[in-house]
């Protein structure tokens, strides 16, 4: 299976980009130095041997901040994926399997999806207050309904299949049916969706922090660095260029990887068809 995944060169590029980000995000902070140490003597210094990516307006090392930002993005991305998969899969299973609850659960999900993602995230952050955990919670609330809808769709098909009926005829309890027969068979689209939720979470976190309503200003995050850099575009373009490149590479890597996963796990959606809506999913999510 991995060999098939690797056969597409473009998927490999995506995997490589993500591997680089993973290494930088996990091991980088150990070597990158302190992201909050201010060296006021060298404010807005251009990239050099000492400060690879230059320094910001209070003399903090941009390289170190970008690396720590990578860790934050990976953390937020994986936490949001975990949260939205747990909530989304549970709600989707319940809605799809128990027809009586379907209407209630899905109307709530529809209501949450009636908000544009970033608007709902901003509103939730306004209520919750700035912190990393709240960013995860807010983005998780935004993306759970999108996972739930996909799971519900698969469950509706799977619960009518012969093997589920056979298991039911043999006297399997609901919990066994859901856990052993329904859930494993609706996981492929969920895994594919997971990679796009990851990308969307990284983007949304960056956007929220950029707008000043995400993680607190002292936490090094790509959005925060860009927000600082906005004010010094003329004097210090490196404040925008390096974190910008980091965001682009991460999202590109996730998109390529997601495309590869989709072609592998969800062949119905592959190919040059209108249903090639991978971009649609991420973009609508935003």
């Amino acid at each position, binding site marked *: 299976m991995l060999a098939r995944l690797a056969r597409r060169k473009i998927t490999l590029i995506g995997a490589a980009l993500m591997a680089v980000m993973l290494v930088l995000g996990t091991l980088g902070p150990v070597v990158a130095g302190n992201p909050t140490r201010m060296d006021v003597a060298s404010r807005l210094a251009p990239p050099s041997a000492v400060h690879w990516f230059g320094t910001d307006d209070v003399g903090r090392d941009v390289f170190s901040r970008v690396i720590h930002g990578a860790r934050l993005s990976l953390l937020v991305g994986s936490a949001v994926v975990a949260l939205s998969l747990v909530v989304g899969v549970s709600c989707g299973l319940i809605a799809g399997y128990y027809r009586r609850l379907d209407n209630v659960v899905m*109307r*709530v999900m*529809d*209501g*949450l999806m*009636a*908000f*544009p*993602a*970033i*608007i*709902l995230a*901003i*509103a*939730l*952050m*306004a*209520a*919750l*207050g700035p912190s990393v955990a709240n960013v995860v919670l807010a983005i998780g609330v935004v993306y759970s309904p999108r996972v739930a809808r996909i799971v519900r769709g698969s469950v509706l098909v799977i619960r009518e299949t012969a093997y589920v009926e056979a298991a039911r005829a043999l006297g399997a309890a609901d919990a066994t049916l859901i856990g052993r027969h329904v859930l494993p068979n609706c996981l492929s689209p969920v895994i594919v969706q997971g990679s796009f939720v990851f990308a969307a979470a990284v*983007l949304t976190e*960056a*956007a929220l922090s*950029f*707008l*000043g*309503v995400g993680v607190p200003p002292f936490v090094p995050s790509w959005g925060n660095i*860009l927000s600082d*850099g*906005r004010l010094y*575009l*003329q004097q210090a*373009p490196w404040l*925008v*260029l390096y974190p*910008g490149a980091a*965001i*682009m590479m991460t*999202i*590109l890597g996730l*998109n*390529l990887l997601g495309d590869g996963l989709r072609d592998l796990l969800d062949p119905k959606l592959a190919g*040059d*068809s*209108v*249903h*090639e*809506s991978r*971009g*649609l999913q*991420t*973009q*609508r999510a*935003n």
Partner: protein
Amino acid sequence: MKVYIVRRLLALIPVALVVATVSFVLIHLAPGDPASVIAGPDASREDVTRIERQLGLDAPLPVQLGRWYVQLAQGNLGQSIFLRKPVTEAILDRVEPTLLLTLFAIVVASLIGVPAGVISARYHNSTTDQVFMALALVGISVPNFLAGLLLILCFSVWLGWFPVAGYSPLEYGWLKTLRSLVLPAFALGVVQSALIARIARSAMLDVLREQYIVAGRAKGLGERAVIYKHALKNAMIPTVTIIGISFAVLISGAVVIETVFNIPGLGRLIISAVLRRDYPVIQGVVLCIAGVYMLINLAVDLSYLAFDPRVRYQ
């Protein structure tokens, strides 16, 4: 068809109720008592009670929710705490830049995306196709606010062609307005055009496999006539749909881009409201944008009926 339209409209009601409830709940999500959160840490006891009374927070929760629905049904979004005017007025004051920016961006996105997609499909698997699709992939990987910053860096800071930021209202002349919106509209539109190009290309490829295209070629029609007269028209259905959806996406994109370019629209309104904890304004803007978003999605769904007579809804 009429039945379908009515059913779609009725289906909006529960969704609208959830939307109204979620925006009501926002104010109560904050840890602690909402009135003192709004008033801030150094507010006096009187200030807190004044806000409590002004927002009706002293009533029991179900009563508050009931009042909220009634108020919304009357089109009243309440009173801003900080701006000291009705929220509807505050929103109307800020609608112009956001609306113009969104419209401009949709024009940019369609003018780039549709031709790129059609050309890619016509020369399927050629170098042109691959270059366009690689660009589109990079395009959907760039967040719009980053695109905005890069455009400012390139066209304002280095080349000096456009103002770095700011907005010139329509009353000072539409040319000035247009000029002040060029960079923000491109920042939004270019990113969205990547998505439109991908959909237009897929739609076009689907259509080109149809029998009537083969028939057209068989009867000796030129490639030009096949592509532009027969294929393009049919490929437009999914493309128009995605343009409609893009409109909804771009409104929320505009909210972010306004911060990059310091444009005094709805985005700046909600962000400054968040920073000042002006909850009525936050609720109002959120409701207003969600409402527009719902209506656009409805219009997109209904447009299928107009575009494709084969579509029959039960």
